[in-house]
């Protein structure tokens, strides 16, 4: 059995920020992450971030990850990290978290406070042959090419023109891979125009009100059929054959929330946050008094806000452990909320604001120690 004050599950932007914040006040932190490298999705992001200067706008994602890891290094032994280590279960009766290093080495952790920063998982849409090798999640394509430098394929059909579909299309072009087309079922581009403009300038067609009808191939993807769809969601018009060996799915994400369910946190289905998410107070504390949530696990948003949510959760956990004076806690918490609100201020964040309003508890017993 390992003991720690704070267990951070998931070493992405939210988890690393929370770990840094809690450790900065003196808390002993353990981070477990199922991937081989810490940094979550940040390590796959080659583009410069938007948002605000506080959250490192203008800096490329993988550089932000290095900055967070450097910050953590500064706290020395106070922060222990386990990569290739999956948190498998939370046992409510004794508060133990069961972890697996690699595929076969199990150990238990008894933390005082837990942050669930498990991120998200890719959605898939139904169509014939959607299980064929070559139908890859957008995050998987990014891992292949941006983390490990492996060519994902020769010609890619991108499904989804949200920010991820647009950004990954651009990244494919940067890696020298052809993008046949981007299909988007909605009548408009979901992502930022600046990303859409970049891929359009490079000659990639963005076909709105089009979707994939079928993947072609016997053992692996050898092509795809796309077609126009009507507002009633039926396929209309001519079938279009697309020559491709990869079909990249960028059709959204779901929060990874299994551990929150296990921990007995009150959950709510919130479409604006893309799935089931935990009810939380302004300190990112759930209805389980020892469990906090931050980042995409708390609702699909983006990395900048995930980092601020992580800071808020880390600060709150350190405060609960007695490392932060009440006055300091109140002031810093207010500052972080100012930054979070600024990030969520724009027109594009209207959906996020609606979603957050449904899961934020106005007051919480968690504020009193």
């Amino acid at each position: 059995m390992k003991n720690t004050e704070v267990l951070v599950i998931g070493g992405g932007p939210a988890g690393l920020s929370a770990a840094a914040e809690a450790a900065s006040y003196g808390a002993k932190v353990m981070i477990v992450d199922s991937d081989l490298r810490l940094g979550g999705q940040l390590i796959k992001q080659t583009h410069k971030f938007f948002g605000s200067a506080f959250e490192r706008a203008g800096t490329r994602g993988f550089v932000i990850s290095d900055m967070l890891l450097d910050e953590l290094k500064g706290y020395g032994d106070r922060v222990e990290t386990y990569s290739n280590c999956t948190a498998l279960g939370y046992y409510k009766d004794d508060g133990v978290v069961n972890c697996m290093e690699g595929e076969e080495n199990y150990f238990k952790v008894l933390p005082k406070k837990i942050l669930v920063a498990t991120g998200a998982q890719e959605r898939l849409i139904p169509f014939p042959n959607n299980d064929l090798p070559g139908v890859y999640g957008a995050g998987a394509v990014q891992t292949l090419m941006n983390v490990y430098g492996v060519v994902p394929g020769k010609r890619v059909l991108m499904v989804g023109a949200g920010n991820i579909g647009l950004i990954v299309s651009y990244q494919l072009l940067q890696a020298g891979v052809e993008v046949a087309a981007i299909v988007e079922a909605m009548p408009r581009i979901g992502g930022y125009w600046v990303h859409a403009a970049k891929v359009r300038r490079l000659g990639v067609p963005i076909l709105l009100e089009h979707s994939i009808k079928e993947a072609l191939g016997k053992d692996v993807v050898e092509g795809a059929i796309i077609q126009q769809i009507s507002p009633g969601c039926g396929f209309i018009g001519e079938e279009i054959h697309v020559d491709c060996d990869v079909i990249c799915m960028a059709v959204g994400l779901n929060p990874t929330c299994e551990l929150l369910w296990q921990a007995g946190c009150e959950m709510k289905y919130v479409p604006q946050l893309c799935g089931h998410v935990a009810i939380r107070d302004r300190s990112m504390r759930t209805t389980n008094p020892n469990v906090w949530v931050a980042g995409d696990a708390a609702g699909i948003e983006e990395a900048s806000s995930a980092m601020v949510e992580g800071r808020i959760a880390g600060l709150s956990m350190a405060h609960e452990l007695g490392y932060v004076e009440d006055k300091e806690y109140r002031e810093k918490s207010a500052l972080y909320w100012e930054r979070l609100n600024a990030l969520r201020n724009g027109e594009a964040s209207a959906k996020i604001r609606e979603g957050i309003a449904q899961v934020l508890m106005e007051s919480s017993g968690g504020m009193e120690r």
Partner: protein
Amino acid sequence: MELIREHPILEFSHGRLVKFTFEGREMEGFEGEPIAMALHANGIRVYRETPEMKRPRGFFCAIGKCSSCFMVVDGVPNVRTCITPLKEGMRIEVQRGKGKIKINHEGDLK
């Protein structure tokens, strides 16, 4: 191997090149990088065959969450190859069906 040679932003620093086998065929990959990536770089895309429908499966999520890339590695089934690091001399096989967990003579799980 199918690797990105030139990139406007990224520089890839690979580890040591090691030998491993896939279905008995010798291949090369970088030590410490996920098995699934090493196989993909060697042009291998089918990693598993489903138990009921015998459908081919490759990798999908690359973050150890979807179970699409389960393979038999050094005799151990259901290994998440997208987040298991490659080691010298690994024996990697396509997983057909659910895979059998080995039990030693004391009846303990291997």
